């Protein structure tokens, strides 16, 4: 089954775990997704192999970015019913706090979806949603 079909099936079942299960990278970092009404919240449970800075220890910045980028593309597929996996054009992340070796979350907001390009903003946090560890902005090609 292609990813697009998987998204359609997931929307019908209201269960997005199947979409993430289809993407090896999502499994590699161990991310999960839950839906609350119209909202999706993505979860990144603690995992030793996701760490970077060995002194703190802290999550690798690249893993936080990859988690946010993956979340944004799932959000687009789910909310906008796009039939292809959106292709990332650019990704700009600000790291606001160290991400510690515990569970992280993120949520996405589709700021604008045009015919060909979508702009998504993403916020990631750990203990408190109001104290984000990183915020990011991404453009995707929808084609």
């Amino acid at each position: 089954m292609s990813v697009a079909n998987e998204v359609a099936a997931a929307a019908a079942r209201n269960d997005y775990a199947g979409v993430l299960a289809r993407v090896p990278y999502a499994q590699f970092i161990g991310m999960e997704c839950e839906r609350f009404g119209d909202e999706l919240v993505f979860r990144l449970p603690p995992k030793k192999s996701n760490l970077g800075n060995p002194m703190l220890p802290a999550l690798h910045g690249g893993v936080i970015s990859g988690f946010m980028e993956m979340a944004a593309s799932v959000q687009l597929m789910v909310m906008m019913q796009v039939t292809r996996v959106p292709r990332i054009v650019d990704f700009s992340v600000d790291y606001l706090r160290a991400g510690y070796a515990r569970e992280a979350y993120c949520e996405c907001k589709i700021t604008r979806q045009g015919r060909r390009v979508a702009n998504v903003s993403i916020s990631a946090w750990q203990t408190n949603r109001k104290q984000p560890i990183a915020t990011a902005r991404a453009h995707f090609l929808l084609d």
Partner: protein
Amino acid sequence: MKPDNRDFFPLTAFAKRFVDQLAQCRELGVNTLEASEHHVLLELPYNPQVIGYPDSGVIHGGVITTLMDTACGAAVITAIYHQSGEVELSPTLDLRVDYMKSATPEKPVFGFAECFKLSSSVAFVRAIAYQDSMDAPLAQAVGSFMRIGSELMTDEFRRVMEGN
């Protein structure tokens, strides 16, 4: 056989010790090929576990971001070490990545980063991810790193970085 760059670039071993401490990079099998006061070159082997587009086998953009973030961080710590002889880890402030084309499956991706300005409080870096040639980049990144001073480093980190 891969050429040994340690003679040309004596800082390669220092940068390698930094990269090898990052659990995510060990998991990805990132190799440190070269490092100097000006640059760092890393290699990310192809790995089906990090595919982002299952229909085509293309790896996820997040892995390329991780490669470039690591290359940039390694370039900063190496540049600081060359300049002052101090071991000082700098957290990433921000990073912007432009994805120009998809990576070809089954081939490694190289990450080349340079620290083009090192001030007393911020380090500025740029990076390129490529496969066949640097003139055909997969992605390009610019970022800045915050300097926090060498006093905050743990003794163990300093010891590992200095290879003792």
